[in-house]
C-alpha cells in the first residue's frame, strides 16, 4: 500500500505520528531532489526518523530513484508513505516510473508568493501556484483523486480544482 502526500515541511511531528501509527507504515519516503543531494539535509531527515519512530524507517530519494525503486516492485509487500513538497514532483515521479497513483493528499501547502488558496480546513491550508495547478489538472485527467487530510483521523476533504483560476 502506498500513501501519497504533499507537505511543505515534509516530516513533522503530529503528521507523521498519526499517519505512521494509523496505517502501520514501514517506510516513510521523502522524495525530493534537493534533500537527496544535500548530505546535511538528508542526514537530518533520516536520523529524525530513527529518533522519533520505533519501527518506521525514513528514506530520502530523488524523484528518479523513487520512480525506479517503487516501480521495481521492491516494496510491494510493505506499507509506504511518499512525501513530496509539491504536486509537480508527484507528476514527474509518476511519469518517470509509469506509476499509477490512486489518490493524492495535498496535506499542507503554505502560503508563498504567487500561490492562491485552493482549500482550507480546520488546521491546514492548501495554497498552490499556477504551475502546481497545471500539474494537478494533469493528474486529475490521469484519474488521480485529490483530497486534503492533515491527520490520519481528520476529515478527508475532497478538492475541487475547477474552482481555482489564475
Amino acid at each position, binding site marked *: 500500500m502506498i500513501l501519497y502526500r504533499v507537505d511543505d515541511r515534509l*516530516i513533522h*511531528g503530529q503528521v507523521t*505520528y498519526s499517519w505512521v501509527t494509523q496505517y502501520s507504515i514501514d517506510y516513510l519516503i521523502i522524495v525530493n531532489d534537493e*534533500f537527496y543531494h544535500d548530505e546535511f539535509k538528508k542526514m537530518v531527515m533520516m536520523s*529524525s526518523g530513527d529518533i522519533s519512530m520505533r519501527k518506521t524507517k525514513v528514506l530520502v530519494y530523488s524523484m528518479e530513484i523513487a520512480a525506479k525503486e517503487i516501480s521495481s516492485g521492491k516494496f510491494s509487500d510493505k506499507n509506504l508513505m511518499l512525501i513530496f513538497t509539491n504536486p509537480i514532483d508527484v507528476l514527474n515521479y509518476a511519469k518517470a516510473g509509469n506509476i499509477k497513483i490512486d489518490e493524492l493528499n495535498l496535506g499542507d501547502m503554505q502560503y508563498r508568493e504567487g500561490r492562491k488558496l485552493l482549500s482550507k480546513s480546520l488546521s491546514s491550508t492548501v495554497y498552490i501556484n499556477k504551475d502546481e495547478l497545471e500539474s494537478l489538472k494533469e493528474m486529475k485527467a490521469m484519474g488521480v483523486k485529490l483530497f486534503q487530510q492533515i491527520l490520519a483521523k481528520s476529515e478527508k476533504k475532497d478538492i475541487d480544482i475547477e474552482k481555482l483560476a489564475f
Partner: protein
Amino acid sequence: MPETVEKKITSQDQWNTFLRSWLLMGSINLERWQALGYCWTMLPLFKKFYGDNKELYTKALKRNLEFFNTEPHMASIIFGMHMAMMEAGADIDAISGMKVALMGPFAGIGDSLIWGTLRTILEGLAISFALQGSLLAVPVFIVPWAIFVAAFMWFTQTYTYRLGADAVREMMAGGLMKRFTDYAGMVGIAVVGALTASFISITTPISFTSAGLTMKLQVFLDAILPKLIPLTLMLSAFALIRKGNSYTRVMLILFVIGFILGSLNLLAV
C-alpha cells in the same frame, strides 16, 4: 574604524538570543506561525551583521519572516545554527534552507521528548501530590519543568553555535538525541508504572470454597504479581489507545466494564 572587522557572536549575543527565544510564540498566526517570533529573536543580530548593508538587511528580514514552525524548545538548536552560519558568512538563502530542513524533524523529536516524555514524567509526580491534596503538586511540576527547559534551551543553543553543523550531526546521526530520548522514555515508563501501582486500587473479591477451605482469588493473584489487576487494566487501556481509540472512548469502556464487573461483585475497590 578598520575596514574588515570580523563580526563575532559574543556571549552577550548568546544571552540576548536565549532570552528573546522565550517569545518565539509571542505572536503567531496560522499562516506563518512562529516566523515573527523567530525574526524578532534574531533581530539584534541581523542589525549587527547586516545593518550596514540595506540590501542584505532587507533580505534577511524578509526571508526570516517566512513560515517557520517547530517545537519551541528545539528551536534553540536552530538559533545556534543560525548564529554559527551568520558568523561564518553563510548566504542568507543557505540559512533559510537550513531552517526549513530542520524545523520539520525537530518538531517531531521535540513533541515526543518535551510534551510526550518530560511532561508525562512531571505530571506523574505532580499527580501523586495532588491526589494527596497537597498544593506542592503545582511547584513540583513547574519548577523542574522550568529548570529543565531553560537548561535544555541554553545548552543546545550554545553547543550548536560552537560546533555548528557538526553539533547537529552529532545529535542526530551520532545518536546523542536518540539516546537521550530513549533514556527519558525509560524514566517516563517507570513513572507511569509507579502511578498505576500506587493509585489504582482495584481488587477482586472472588473467593472459592472447596472442602471447607475458602481461598481468595486476590491472594492468589498477589502471589503471582502484586497489583496484577491494575496493571492488566492499564495495559489494556494502552492497547486500545494504540489501536486508535480516542481517550474518551477508552474511559467509557473502562467505566462500563467497571460498572458491570463491579455490580457482579467480580471487581472491587
